[in-house]
């Protein structure tokens, strides 16, 4: 079966610096896939390339077999790529519910609801459901600009899920969260339906090993190893790489 996401020989350069050097990656439907590696390994860059926010100088990105290398972030989002940023990105002057509503609109359009009020109703239902799932129902009418960091993270997850993604890109979702919030996050991600594949960049290895079934280790823009958490934990080169500079 065609994997959901295929990255082939992705190369990205910033001036003379090579951020990614012919990286390959495959994420089958429903997989929980982690990207780990020292700072500067190119993890976020790879997420950028998959999301369409950065363009590789070489290589291809395929979504369900279709070449999307030349498509921008919006077109990829419409093809089922959802994203959570390192800094939670939400719309500050909109309320929590409006945030999710806005994010749900493109999906409602695709679902063939061309009549505006029907579209808005469909998006509104999605928003209410998702706010409930991330536990923000009580704060639905509060502008996101007044949210604390953890709440922004929760909201961004709802925003990302509003597009009903097949592939969810998570860039260090646990960064800056309290222990309680990290527990909530792990629980939430574990509860995601298998219809959603996850590509997770995370420094907290406990979270990675608890959630993911496949781990890819990047270092200096190259793939060092890919395997199950057990294999990665046992791998000598991975340990060496981490001994030299882990976070």
């Amino acid at each position, binding site marked *: 079966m065609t994997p959901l996401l295929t990255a082939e020989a992705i190369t990205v350069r910033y001036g003379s610096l090579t951020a990614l050097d012919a990286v390959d990656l495959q994420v089958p439907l429903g997989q929980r896939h982690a990207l780990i590696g020292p700072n500067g390994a190119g993890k976020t860059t790879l997420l950028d390339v998959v999301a369409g*926010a950065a363009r590789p100088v070489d290589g291809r990105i395929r979504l369900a077999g279709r070449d999307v290398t030349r498509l921008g972030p919006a077109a990829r989002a419409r093809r089922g790529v959802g994203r959570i940023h390192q800094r939670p990105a939400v*719309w500050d002057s909109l309320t929590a519910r409006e945030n999710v509503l806005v994010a749900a*609109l493109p999906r409602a359009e695709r679902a063939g609801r061309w009549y505006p009020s029907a579209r808005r109703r469909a998006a509104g239902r999605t928003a209410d459901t998702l706010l409930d799932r991330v536990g923000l129902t009580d704060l639905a009418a509060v502008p996101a600009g007044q949210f604390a*960091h953890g709440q922004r993270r929760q909201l961004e997850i709802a*925003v990302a899920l509003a597009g009903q993604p097949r592939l969810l890109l998570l860039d260090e979702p646990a960064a800056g969260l309290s222990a309680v919030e990290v527990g909530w996050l792990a629980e939430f991600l574990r509860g995601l339906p298998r219809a959603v594949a996850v590509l997770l960049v995370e420094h907290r290895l406990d979270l990675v090993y608890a959630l993911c079934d496949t781990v890819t280790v990047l270092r200096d823009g190259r793939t060092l190893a890919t395997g199950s958490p057990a294999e990665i934990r046992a791998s000598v080169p991975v340990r060496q790489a981490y001994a030299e500079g882990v976070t």
Partner: protein
Amino acid sequence: MRALRMAVGAGVLVGLVAAPWAVDDYTVSLLARTLALGLVAVGVALLTGVAGLPTLGQTAPYAAGAYAGALAGGQLSDVGPVQLLVAAAAGAALAAVTLPLVLPARGVVLLMITLAIGELAVVLAGRWTAVTGGTDGLAGIAATRPLWGLPVLATDRSRYLYTLVVVAVLTGLVLLVLRTRAGLLLRAGRDDEARLRASGHRVPAQVAGVHVGAGAIAGAAGSLLVTAQQYVSPADFGFDTSALLLLGVVVGGTASVGGALIGAVLVVAARDWLFGALPGQAPLVLGLAFVVAAHLLPTARSARPATRRGRASAPAAHPARRPAAMTGVRP
């Protein structure tokens, strides 16, 4: 808060309706012109405040609408709504033609490009003598008929009231549109455009839409200007007009469309009064007023260029969050 806003709005409206009976004819005609400028300010607020796309160039579609309205009045129809439609179409068309210039730009770059467009439009109006009458302008424009079958607007008072009705209707229309998802999307684009793309929205189409919409509003305002003063020349669309509009919008509280209308009317009225009271020193006083206003206005002072991605961590409350004036050209 909401009730207060409604009360202020109602008060202003009553004042505006009663105004022509309180002052002389000349002032009434000045007020009509000022209202037309207020409508342009509504478009400026839509772009600058709501959508976070700062502009100094709305005088360009304003001028296009004014000349188109004047020509339509002379050759097509003396009926107001027809002229308004033609003028709005001309303003929208001008905005559409300049889209390739403004679409990729944000922040101070957009400010520069729109200013250049506005200034070039004035130069064009001054040189394209065959159509615009050059720097002499177009005079002797026939009086407008507010609707089919009604008598023409023969007095300053009637022209003022016609302008007031049109401005009120169009501003109300803008406020209604902003309450739909269009308003949500524009505000979301101002807050964080990258997030909007990442959610699958076609941001360039939205930016194009608000530019063309604001162009149509400015165009309609141009037709009102022609109806109100029955004369049009490039002097109506100078650089100072753009700056006054921007000041009015900032005074009115950037993101508020109604506030922008009131702010612009106040600022333009103050300018007109100043030029009457101190003919020699008016530009100097006005210039100093701009400098002082830039220092004093709370909205202006708290308007910070936002980062592309909001804030690192959000403290509980942000007083007076103001438009994101993003910097730079983006893809």
